[in-house]
Structures are given as structure tokens and as C-alpha cells.
């Protein structure tokens, strides 16, 4: 696929150019995660730490995935390349999807870099997710669903950002909502009623509850199904809204405005 080659080429040279910044970013994230894991692990002594480990790893994904589409859209408009991309042999949406794939592969490498030290330092009991085929299958489904949700939500935000340019700044708030209110840091059962409502709305909250259920040996089938459906719904809505957004700004003449 030429479009994937194009995006990987661009991404590799981008990383090459800013390798020092990327390396420093990774090291600072690692320090943050180690501190957070240690602190939260101390509070929740007795739990195997598997959900916390997976949750934090997913949160790293979330940070990139949610803001990715908005950031790229802003960049393309700033450089005046959005109009050039729009008349190539691929639609803008296909180009963005290929770009997500490139970022996703890079994020996987990031996770290996961040996850390995975290695993060796704290030795979370990940065996619970691999104790039987059913648990492994469910944890994979939940993880994939959450990743799809994050990218779908990113598209959703980018679509709104086409018209309301400052929406991209919201991604920071969403990132911390996910970290603190989805059950990664504060277990769902310990949350006050109001936070439980927020957690129940957040797809990440639902997924984390399903994963922490596995850690306790319980399969919350309804949460797993809900998580999978929710992810597809958000991705679908994100794509539709993105296409509508592009059409709208082409109509109003704001397509390349930044």
C-alpha cells in the first residue's frame, strides 16, 4: 500500500529529525510511570498490579491516540499541505488512517521501551490474563476495543476541531480524566458515587473494570460486550463526523484555516 509507505516514510524521518526530543520524552514518561506505579501500588497493596500495569500502558496509548488526529490536522493546515493531500489518489481519511497505523507501530515500540523496565522493577502478576484461553481472549478483545475507541475519539475531536480550532486543547483534559477516573489509579469500587458515573461513561473505565474483574477471576461479559460495541460506535461516529466536518469546512472556505 503506497499510502502506508508514505506515512511510514514521513514518520521515520520525523523521528530521525527529532530523535533527541523523542528520547527525552520517553525517559520523562518512564520516570513518571515508575513513580505513579510505585505510589499507587503502595496504596493498593494486595492486588497483583496487573490492571494497573495494563491500564498505565493503555493510558500511554490514549495520550497519543486522542490528540493525534487533531495535532496532525493542525499541522497540515499550518504547513498548507492539507490541500495537497486532498487531491492525491487517497482520501484524507485514508491518509489519516495510514498515519494512525504508523503512530500505532511507533507506540508499540514505545510501550516495549516503557513496559519492560516497569515490568522488571515491579513484577506485576500478568499471568492472570493468560491463565486460560478465555481470559486471554477477553483481555485481547478489551485492549483492542479500547485502542479503537481512543483513535475513534481522536477522529471525533479532530472533526469538531475543523470548525472550533481550540478543541484540540481539550485532549489534555480528556487524557487526565482517563488516567484518574477510569479506574487505573483509583479502583472503581473505592470511587465516590459522582466519579463512578464518570467512570461508567468513559469507555476506558468500562474496559478497566472488565480487566480488573479478570484479575479477581470474574468475567463481566456485559462489560466486555459493551466495551466492544462502544468502540465500534465511537469509531463509526468519528469517521462520519470527520467526513461531515471536511465537507462543512470545504463549503465555508475554512478548509485550510488554522
Amino acid at each position, binding site marked *: 500500500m503506497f499510502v502506508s509507505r508514505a506515512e511510514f*516514510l514521513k514518520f521515520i524521518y520525523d523521528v530521525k529529525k*527529532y530523535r533527541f526530543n523523542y528520547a527525552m520524552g520517553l525517559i520523562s514518561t518512564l520516570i513518571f510511570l515508575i513513580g505513579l506505579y510505585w505510589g499507587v501500588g503502595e496504596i493498593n497493596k494486595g492486588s497483583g498490579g496487573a490492571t494497573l500495569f495494563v491500564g498505565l500502558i493503555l493510558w500511554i496509548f490514549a495520550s497519543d491516540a486522542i490528540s493525534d488526529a487533531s495535532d496532525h490536522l493542525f499541522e497540515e493546515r499550518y504547513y*498548507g499541505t492539507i490541500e495537497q493531500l486532498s487531491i492525491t489518489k487517497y482520501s484524507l481519511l485514508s491518509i489519516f488512517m495510514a498515519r494512525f497505523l504508523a503512530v500505532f507501530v511507533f507506540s508499540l515500540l514505545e510501550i516495549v521501551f516503557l513496559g519492560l523496565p516497569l515490568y522488571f522493577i515491579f513484577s506485576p502478576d500478568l499471568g492472570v490474563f493468560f491463565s486460560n484461553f478465555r481470559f486471554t481472549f477477553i483481555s485481547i478483545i478489551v485492549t483492542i476495543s479500547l485502542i479503537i475507541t481512543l483513535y475513534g475519539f481522536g477522529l471525533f475531536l479532530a472533526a469538531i476541531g475543523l470548525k472550533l480550532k481550540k478543541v484540540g486543547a481539550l485532549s489534555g483534559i480528556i487524557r487526565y480524566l482517563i488516567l484518574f477516573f477510569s479506574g487505573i489509579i483509583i479502583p472503581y469500587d473505592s470511587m465516590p458515587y459522582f466519579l463512578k458515573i464518570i467512570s461508567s461513561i468513559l469507555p476506558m473505565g468500562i474496559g478497566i473494570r472488565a480487566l480488573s474483574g479478570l484479575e479477581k477471576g470474574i468475567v463481566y461479559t456485559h462489560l466486555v460486550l459493551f466495551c466492544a460495541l462502544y468502540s465500534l460506535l465511537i469509531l463509526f461516529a468519528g469517521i462520519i463526523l470527520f467526513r461531515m466536518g471536511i465537507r462543512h469546512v470545504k463549503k465555508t472556505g475554512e478548509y485550510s484555516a488554522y
Partner: protein
Amino acid sequence: MKRFVGSSNSLLSIKNITKVYRTKNQEIVANRNITFDVKKGEILGILGPNGAGKTTLIKQIATLLLPDEGDILFQGKSILSHPDCFLGKFSFLMEGARSMYEYLSARVNLLYFAYLYKIPEKVARKRIDELMEMFGLTEFLEEYVMNYSTGMLKKLNIVRCLLTEPEVVFLDEPLSGLDVIASEELINLIQSLVRKRNITFLIASHRMDFVEKITDRVIWLKDGEIVKMGETENIKTSVENFEYQVYIKKGKNTIKLLEEMGILYEVLKGGVLRCNISLKQKEQLKQLLNNEDIISLEKRERDFESVFKEVYG
């Protein structure tokens, strides 16, 4: 929205395009009822003063803007109802936009766009080398685009446009930022591309000499509407092919008289004034001959710029 059927020998048919920009307080009509056809291999110039709607028009044809009314047909198919039928067939050179990723080298930028036009790497690399050499940029191929000067960036963008071998190339003010030699090279290149590959060009420009030299046909826009359209040569003759160029020794009341008669003048060295008077302004010419000290009077063929001034007042 109305749909139209295009004529079979046109590559592009623009049918009753109207575009209105709406803000909170006002509506600006950028294009109104614009209709014309473009043949394959044609070089069409779009002329007009600032704000005439040139860029809006070519952006709509390139589908970067959606018209409020009308339709655009490419090879007989509506671009608006079949947006996929034109993908990869157009190239656009924007005025003022960087249109490149500054943090990447020229080669990576060009290769990136080549992939998006599904050009295999080997072919793309060969074309990149050829085009960069043609524009004298070979030694800057590995340079980051952020280090390019305005003129170099313009050339690089032209390379990007031509690299993909599109069917239609839209050029918005292609000569701005280019030196005389590069401008000449671009003119030759466009003409050779039309000859060899039958590529169609739509060029919006203020440069009359350039448009006059290169285009087969021109469209003159004023306040979003077509005021004149026709073959470049015929447009000149349809207005008036000749004019008087008069050199006058500046007298006490010369400037006042010229201003009263509405004749534009230029002050030259040694107290000499130069003005162009159309054949229609016979009375004014008589008045000048009677009252002023005329150094020379010459009947000459008008250039495009002079015609432009007359059309736009």
C-alpha cells in the same frame, strides 16, 4: 443543486458556479454564474485584480472548495457527485502556502507525495532527480525544506506539481518569488509539457506578460463574474489593438489637463511625461496636440497590460 451534462470534447466543464462567503455581518459573492469549458492540453489563463475571485474559482475546480450552486464536470462526470473520479488527476500550486513539511528534506517530501500518487519508488526517484536538475536544485535535494529560500520553495513546489504527471495543473501566481531565468524556464517547461504530455494548465496570475506569452485562452474576472473570455490573441484585438503613445514636454498646466481628461501619465526624467491614449480618445488627443508641446507621437500595438487597465477601468 442542479446537475448538468458536459460536452464530450471538454476535459473540464464548469457550469454556473456561484460561491458566496458568509460571515456574521456580510455576504461576499466570490464567484457568480461562471460557466466555461477547458479542453485537454489547453493553457487557460484566469486574470483579474485582487479580490476578483480567481483563487476561489480554481480552488472550486480542484474541489478544495465546494460551490454553493452549479456543477463541475471532469471528463463528463460530476466531480461533486463522484468525488473519487478526479483523485490523483490534479496538482495545485498555491500562492503563499508552503505546501511542504519543513522538517523533512526536499527528497523525502517529494517521495512522500509521489507515494500518495501511487508512483513506484524507482520511477519517483528518477523523476525527482530529473526535475530537480531542471530547476537547478539538485545540490539542495537532501536539504531540509525549512532552509529553502522563498524562490527555491516555489521551484520545489512546481517540481512537486509536475512530479505526479497529473492531467490538470492549477497554478496560482506561479511566478511570484521566481527570478527572470526561473520564470523563463517555467514558461518553456509548461509549453513542453503541453506539447509532449498534453497536460492541461489553469493559471491564475497578475503577470500580463506571462499570461500573454503562455496562454491559449484567457478568462477575465471582475467582482466574481466573467467580463471577457476568449483566445488570448483575439481578446487583445477585440478591445482595440492599437493606441497612441505620446511624449509631452511638461508645461505649466499639462498635469492638470491630463488629470481633467482622465488620462494616466508617467513622469520621466527631464520634465517629460509619457501617456497612452486609446484610439477612442480622439478629442483628448486633439486637445493635447493644440495646447501642449508634443515631443513624439507613435501609434503602437497595445500590450496585455494596457488592455487589462481598460477592461478594469
